[in-house]
């Protein structure tokens, strides 16, 4: 379980958000929504401590992640798989090697076992025939899927998705949404999806956190969101040109 308690973050004089508190239950999929610049990705980067807050805590199974030493933090980070907005694939190696990358350094597997695990991950994202293509040869959707395969290859407990459908056509976005649902169900992973794509939110999320006006403006289940009269949330959904 992830507990975010009274988290406040600013960059220099610019306050991003303050006093953010929410819980993410095991196996749950939380969507964090909000306008561009509302600090969604910043919040995500606090969960695996790529950023430190000004104040507040993130507890993972009761452990405050901001207080642990770097060596232990690196072990903790391996419990997280992250799909970055641009996939963040290493462009000097092939897509296959990108997926195999963490296994080569952090597992005791031999080459056959690594191959087996990589193919298992690639099959889960429907890219078993990716071969020796480099990231430059892949489409946006394929890059995201390879990024997702790399994120799940170490069998993490938590999956963080940063704008998984941004820049993709509706059909490819749907494929990514299907994968997010599939990951959560097949691997029983706790997922946090950073997005402003309401279609994606309604398809994949159990709960929704709405960041707005430098705070957690609204937090609840998808059903509660459908019935919410929260003015800013409704305005955001309306601006997304999505009817619920």
């Amino acid at each position, binding site marked *: 379980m992830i507990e975010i308690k009274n988290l406040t973050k600013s960059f220099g004089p610019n306050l991003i958000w303050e006093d953010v508190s929410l819980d993410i239950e095991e196996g749950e999929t939380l969507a964090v929504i909000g306008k561009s610049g509302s600090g969604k990705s910043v919040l995500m*980067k606090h969960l*695996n401590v*790529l950023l430190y807050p000004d104040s507040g805590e993130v507890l993972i199974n009761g452990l405050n992640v901001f207080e642990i030493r*770097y060596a232990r933090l*690196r*072990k903790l*980070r*391996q419990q*997280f798989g*992250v799909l*970055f*907005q*641009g996939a*963040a*694939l*290493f*462009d000097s190696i092939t897509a296959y090697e990108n997926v195999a*990358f*963490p296994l080569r*350094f*952090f597992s005791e597997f031999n080459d056959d076992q690594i191959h087996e695990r990589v193919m298992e991950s690639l099959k889960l994202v429907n890219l078993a025939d990716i071969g020796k293509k480099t990231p430059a040869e892949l489409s946006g959707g394929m890059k995201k899927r390879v990024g997702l395969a790399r994120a799940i290859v*170490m069998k993490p407990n938590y999956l963080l998705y940063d704008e998984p459908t941004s820049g993709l056509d509706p059909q490819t976005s749907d494929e990514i949404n299907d994968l997010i649902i599939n990951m959560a169900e097949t691997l029983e992973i706790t997922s946090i999806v950073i997005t402003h794509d309401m279609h994606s939110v309604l398809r994949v999320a159990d709960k929704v956190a709405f960041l707005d006006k430098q705070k957690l403006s609204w937090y609840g289940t998808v059903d509660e969101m459908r019935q919410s009269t929260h003015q800013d949330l409704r305005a955001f959904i309306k601006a997304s040109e999505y009817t619920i």
Partner: protein
Amino acid sequence: MQLFVDVGRYCRLIYEAIRSSTEFGMYWRNIFIEMVKTGFDSLPIIILAGFFTGAVMTIQTSYQLVAGFIPPSTIGSIVSQSLLIELAAVISALVLAGRVGARIATELGTMAVSEQIDALESMGFNSVTFLVMPRVLAGIFMFPVIYVAAAVAGMSGGLLSGYMTGAVPVADFMLGARQVFSPADVSFGIIKSFVFGYIITSISCYKGYFATGGAEGVGQATTQAAVLSCIYILVADFVLAFLLL
């Protein structure tokens, strides 16, 4: 104010690199890759720069030493000693500030702005050990090799241009070079190249690692890495000459 921020972050990066060096064994392959990129791949440009530096210096020295009572071997002495003490190390460092420094800053800068460094960290890697340490160590190890290559190429250039222009016969050039040769000069050049290797790679790693702002940010980081490396090479050259000669 920004200067203090830069110095603090640079020191912090180097401290992190040294502190985490115990786990460097995990990434030892990276250093060989970087040694090839920094050293072996730079040899053509270094040999070219060294060769022409020696060639031009021989012609210019012979032009300046017009008095008949100065023996031609003096040209060999001046050219060889200048190359060993100063030019082989400094010219190669200035050339590599552009070639190696720009490459490192661009590579790391692109990784930084495309979240590849974040991806490394989130997988559990120590990105400083993985990215910075191999590049800095490769610079420290390979620059002395580059210095030797530049010095040999410079001598060859001087010898050949002296012979072809008739400024100094080969035997006289060699005699002059042998007369002033001192192992201490080579040691001085090697110490310089160690320091220059560290300066170029560490500054370029720093600028690339902390690059922000997309393609423009990477461009700025690359330019700053090359310019700052050149400035600190010249400053370090003066300090080392003052301290060691």
